[in-house]
């Protein structure tokens, strides 16, 4: 795909027609889809050709069958499990993001707060998440989804806090001088310069955070709690040697992660259509 030349000095060209745009989108996504389908196909063929036992690696068709079979019924109803885990991940995402934003705004406004809070935040980030999960289970109740949310929130907090702080503080010095020359208040500088400047940083952090929140939720589930969640299904089906179900559960976890990620991509297109990272993706 050749990228659009910036229309320097000429009024914008009209957008290409709908059919043309769809054609370009297909051409854009076709290679990725081909690779994906090809890998699945090779996997299936290899399992059948070498007669690999399902305990080691189940065939894609077997995983598909397990998915259908356990979708809403059986010992491990997968759809409900995925929904419950997604709920925990989302809860953690919201809590961690809000905490990260709050600290970032405080830290970028008051230099004293930065010196006081940053070491603690870095220390919190250094804690191995595997070690903290059982403790949170004890604190917030092992069957309470909040204990899983807090593990996810802890993972989400740091990238959001660090990136948003960077976005709020790394503003062109000339932009600050410009605002000062207009006698703009701190509040106006925050609203009109710092916050828009931080938006791309925030969305980048949020993309990372979606994946982290799912990891956090599933790690929390590993250390006990109500069944009917992806983490418990993985533990239980693996110990029952039902690896087709294990793989199906992992697949659903991945799908949940991808949906969260895509939601952020949509949010990004809506919030920062002006930013270079979003502009480049425009086909044509």
């Amino acid at each position, binding site marked *: 795909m050749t990228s659009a030349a*910036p229309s320097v*000095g000429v009024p914008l060209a009209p957008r290409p027609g709908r059919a043309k745009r769809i054609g370009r989108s297909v051409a854009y996504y076709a290679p990725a889809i081909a690779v994906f389908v090809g890998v699945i196909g090779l996997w299936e063929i290899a399992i059948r050709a070498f007669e690999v036992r399902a305990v080691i690696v189940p065939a894609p068709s077997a995983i598909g069958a397990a998915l259908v079979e356990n979708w809403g019924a059986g010992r491990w109803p997968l759809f409900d499990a995925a929904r419950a885990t997604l709920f925990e991940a989302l809860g953690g995402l919201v809590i961690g993001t809000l905490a990260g934003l709050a600290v970032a705004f405080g830290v970028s406004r008051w230099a004293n707060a930065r010196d006081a809070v940053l070491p603690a935040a870095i220390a919190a980030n250094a804690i191995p998440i595997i070690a903290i999960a059982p403790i949170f289970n004890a604190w917030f109740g092992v069957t309470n989804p909040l204990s899983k949310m807090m593990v996810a929130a802890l993972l989400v907090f740091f990238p959001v806090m660090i990136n948003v702080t960077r976005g709020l503080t790394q503003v062109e010095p*000339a932009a600050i*001088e*410009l605002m000062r*020359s*207009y*006698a703009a208040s701190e509040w106006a500088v925050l609203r009109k310069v710092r916050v828009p400047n931080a938006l791309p940083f925030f969305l980048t952090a949020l993309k990372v955070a979606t994946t982290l929140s799912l990891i956090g939720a599933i790690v929390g589930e590993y250390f006990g709690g109500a069944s009917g969640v992806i983490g418990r299904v993985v533990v239980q089906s693996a110990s029952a040697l039902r690896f087709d179900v294990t793989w199906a559960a992992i697949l659903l976890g991945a799908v949940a992660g991808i949906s969260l990620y895509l939601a952020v991509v949509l949010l990004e297109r809506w919030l920062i259509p*002006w930013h*270079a990272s979003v502009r480049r993706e425009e086909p044509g």
Partner: protein
Amino acid sequence: MTDQPDRAASVVRISGVDKEFSAGGRVVTTALSGIDLDIRRGEFVSLIGPSGCGKSTLLRLIGDLIAPTAGSVEVNGKPAHAARLGREYGMVFQAPVLFEWRSVEDNVKLPLELLGMARSERETRARQMLDLVELGEFRGHHPHQLSGGMQQRVAIARALALQPAILLMDEPFGALDEMTRERMNSEVLRIWQQTGTTIVFVTHSIPEAVFLSTRVVVMSPRPGRITRVVDVPLGQPRNDDTREEPRYFQVVTEVREALRAGGGLGGESTGASDDRLAAEGRVG
């Protein structure tokens, strides 16, 4: 020029100004020493000198972006600080400093929003200003869709939006190629004549300073002092033919000799910045 304003009135009155930069309680640099300068209403004054002569520092003192160590800066008969709070400045920097999340028109509206001007009035004023810099048809574009010269014209439109008493320009065309720079010079002269705004212009290009100004203030480095003020007796309006007049060359030579006498060019003073200036001088 229509409606000649009162030429005797001082817009800027600088008396006995020193500026020292300190670190850890010790004076590190004496940027400016014993500066006296009066700028009358409607004048176009250039500050010229080698890097490190404090010309940008002097501009920032006039704009109250920094405070003098000694002496006083008055703008429109009041301290520079009061003038800044009264929003009497327009500033243009070397970089356009346009906000990428705002359209061209919204960038021009920024100072009007800070002033709290009514929406409909903002609309009208922003369009007037964009028409003034001949970018009316680009008002819906985003900055990245414009060339460097056009972006700088948007910055000028923004700086003039509040109809400031004084326009401060800090090497505004330093990043542009020679051809664009000459076009922009003619543009600025046209705008100056149309609006009657007082302009203080920092540059290290001798031809640019002579072509634009009614007076050229020649500065020398370490510590920054005004060594000479050269009157430019070229008529108005000036155009491409002005650059070929014998009198133009005479003034260019006069400014160059003043720079050399002050240690700004060739001879006793050496250094990369001085070489760059010498190269620029040869162009004229």
